[in-house]
């Protein structure tokens, strides 16, 4: 079968890739020690053992993680998997300045390893025994989300002799249902069924159904969409072109006139506007409240062609700590599915004396952001501010607004969660992480209560026990109006006629589309 994808994935190397384009295919090639159940819906966000025999055994102080590698594992090229390969895998992530490195810097000795700059040096916090397969990881301090870091694509184990360089042109072998057989950057890459992988290799990870999955780079999304409609392409990576959504829903949607081959699913993501609390007028809580009151979330959702679920919460649905109440009557700024209370917003802004304050609204040039930015600027004008949108190139966007000297007042942001732990969202509003450049806490939220809670919750490995505290924290963040969350993004799966859409397209909340489970109709 053939897949269309608009751009070459950032990397086809588990140590480096940090995009859905790279991760979706790589989930089927590289398996970490811990992974997620290959299930549709909520069940899929539960962890299960991957290359390890069991989930990690965590010491009471939360500092030591013990795992044992499964016996008799082999990479797709036949090399046996060794426990020490895990340490090599983590070394590659740290040494190659991967965007994933921060997740593993909490391991004891990782700082020293990085500072020394010697790729082959030892990381003192990782002890491995190739004979017994035992792996012991010691952390410098307790980290609640570390077991999720172990299940990330970055930790997908590769052989111990994999070079410390970007392997996109010749991706290393892994343990998974598929293996890369061809990778020509900007043209295509091919996955073929891994002959070494059987149903017993990792119980719970099924063998690939299709022999081969070829991904072609087709820059035009409208062309991809048309090709899938015409059955010339079997699946498209990107969401369908907005121009076609209406037609596709009418014909191929759940209530379409033809057989279903299109569905939408909500992702672990939040779209929000930042309000820089260090810069006027947003240093005044009243102004921030006015903005939260005045933003028309249903209007913004239309700019996404209906692929945005309007919301009020920072933590998205499916994330522990999310509460449904916040997305209805419980939202302090009014039900997100209803028009905003403009009069109250205008009144509040007047009280704050910020009427007519000049505001620059930042956004990047990647569709639909320019439209959203302009609509948001217009909504700010409706409540009485004097807002002007500023659209800059996507390549320099985060660098620009993440620089304190830019003093970016407000603008477009979104975050797609990497794993189902609220810490993966809340680091974005942690006062301890504010930096002069490359800042990720663009609102400069520095609230003692949030900082204190994050410090405590960040050490608590038992998430279910503290979910209610996360829930309270999420509510507090929304009430303080530091940011303006307005919705959760939906992605879509759209396939050709020959695919068995009904039975073979589970959507895992972390992995999204699981390539290995797809099947044709007659097979």
């Amino acid at each position, binding site marked *: 079968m053939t897949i269309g994808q608009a751009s070459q994935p950032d990397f086809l190397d588990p140590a480096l890739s940090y995009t859905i384009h790279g991760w979706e295919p790589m989930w089927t090639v590289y398996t970490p020690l811990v992974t997620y159940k290959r299930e549709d819906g909520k069940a899929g966000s539960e962890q299960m053992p991957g290359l390890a025999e069991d989930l990690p055994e965590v010491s009471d102080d939360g500092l030591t993680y013990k795992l044992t590698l499964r016996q008799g594992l082999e990479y797709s090229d036949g090399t046996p998997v060794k426990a020490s390969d895990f340490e090599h895998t983590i070394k590659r992530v740290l040494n190659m300045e991967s965007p994933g490195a921060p997740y593993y810097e909490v391991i004891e000795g990782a700082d020293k390893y990085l500072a020394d700059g010697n790729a082959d040096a030892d990381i003192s916090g990782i002890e491995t025994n190739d004979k017994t397969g035992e792996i012991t990881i010691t952390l410098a301090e307790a980290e609640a989300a570390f077991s999720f870091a172990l299940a990330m694509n970055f930790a997908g184990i590769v052989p111990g002799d994999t070079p410390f360089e970007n392997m996109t042109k010749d991706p290393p072998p892994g343990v998974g249902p598929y293996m890369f057989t061809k990778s020509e950057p900007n043209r295509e890459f091919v996955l073929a069924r891994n002959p070494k992988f059987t149903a017993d290799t990792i119980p719970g990870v099924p063998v690939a159904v299709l022999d081969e999955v070829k991904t072609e780079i087709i820059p035009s999304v409208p062309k991809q969409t048309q090709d899938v409609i015409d059955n010339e392409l079997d699946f498209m990576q990107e969401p369908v072109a907005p*121009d076609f959504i*209406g037609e596709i829903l009418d014909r191929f949607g759940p209530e379409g006139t033809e057989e279903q081959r299109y569905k939408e699913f909500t992702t672990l993501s939040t779209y929000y506007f930042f309000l820089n609390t260090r810069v006027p007028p947003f240093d005044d809580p009243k102004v921030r409240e006015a903005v939260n009151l005045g933003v028309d979330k*249903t209007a913004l959702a239309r700019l996404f062609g*209906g692929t945005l679920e309007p919301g009020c919460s920072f933590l998205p649905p499916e994330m522990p700590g999310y509460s449904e109440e916040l997305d209805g009557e419980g939202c302090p700024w009014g039900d997100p599915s209803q028009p905003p209370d403009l009069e109250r917003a205008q009144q509040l802004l007047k009280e704050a004396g910020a009427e007519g304050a000049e505001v620059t609204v930042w956004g990047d*040039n990647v569709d639909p952001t320019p439209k959203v930015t*302009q609509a948001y600027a217009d*909504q700010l004008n409706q409540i009485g501010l004097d807002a002007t949108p*500023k659209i800059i*190139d996507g390549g320099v966007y985060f660098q620009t607004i993440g620089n304190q000297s830019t003093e970016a007042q407000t603008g477009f942001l979104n975050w797609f969660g990497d794993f189902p732990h609220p810490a993966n969202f809340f680091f974005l509003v942690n006062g301890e992480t504010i930096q002069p450049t490359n800042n990720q806490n663009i609102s400069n939220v520095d609230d003692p209560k949030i900082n204190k809670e994050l410090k405590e919750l960040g050490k608590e490995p038992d998430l279910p026990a503290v979910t209610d505290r996360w829930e309270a924290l999420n509510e507090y963040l929304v009430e303080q109006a530091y940011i303006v969350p307005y919705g959760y993004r939906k992605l879509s799966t759209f396939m050709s006629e020959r695919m068995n859409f009904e039975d073979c397209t589970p959507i895992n909340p972390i992995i999204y589309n699981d390539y290995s489970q797809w099947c044709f109709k007659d097979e």
Partner: protein
Amino acid sequence: MSVPSQGEEAGASGTEFSLDSAEELSGDPAERPGLGPWRLTGRRLRRDKVALVAGAVFVLVVAACLAAPLWADHVANTTPEENHLSDQVTIDGEKTDVVDLRGKPIGPTWNGEFFLGADSNGRDIMVRLLYGGRNSLVIGIAGALGTILIGLVLGLLAGYYRGRTDSVLRWVLDVIWAFPVILLGVALGTALALGGLSIGPITIEGDSLAIPTLIIAVIYIPYLARPVRGQALALREREFVEAARAQGMGSLRIVFTEILPNVSSTLVVFLPLLVANAILLEASLSFLGAGVQPPNPSWGTMIAEGVDRIVTAPHLTIVPGAMLVLAVLSLNVFGEGVRDALDPRAKVRIEH
């Protein structure tokens, strides 16, 4: 104005007004020799109906764009920036979403509100078209005038003084000339849109219309300065310049009172063509995101914003595209008419 007698001019190159071109039409009593060159041009132009119609069309476009606030305030009751994402309009007694839940904007209603439909943000296309036209025309005309002003001075100085002045100026112009127009425009546009421009006490914001105007003015300088320089080079050897020098006139005075009037016909021919090219370049740059910055409308940005909805909402691209064609085509046809009237032998082209 000191226009030399026609006899003196014979045989000069370029677009100068010459005896030959007057003689070609000497059979016509209206164009008997002795009539002033500008009046002669006017008479010829009046006979060129196609050019006149084109000129009238352009004037109409300009007039419509100037009337943008009237349309916005009294007919459409909105502004070019106002979003109407969750509003509804009544068509044939039925309430219809301006932008439906799937993001598809309404098409032409042929009523006052949303006469030509709405864009993806629920903004009135007609209002944006008129305001966008204002921006496009202002940038085009101001850019072309800027080019003429700078190009003329540089060309005259280089041609008259020759030597080192000429070498330096030519070298600078060659550097600009060496870049493809669009590439240079995009490079300057994206750089300046981000940081704005500040020269001494003057600061121009990144989203100001002055930025694309300035870029367009600079890019086209060599296309004007080169032919002017060529003419100045030829003119400075002519007898009337020698005579002026013999009278004791200073160099600068000779340049601006003796040579300048003789290249003025070139400028008149160049102006409409330059404006048409500048409008096109503005549209290209805006389409690529390096020209007019949102939320300011321009025909180029409107096309760019509508291009991803070309199947379900073709009016988003067709309407501004048609206006662009109308304005540029009418101006080009009119410009050619002016050129023919002024000097049928002249070969004025702006080549990229």
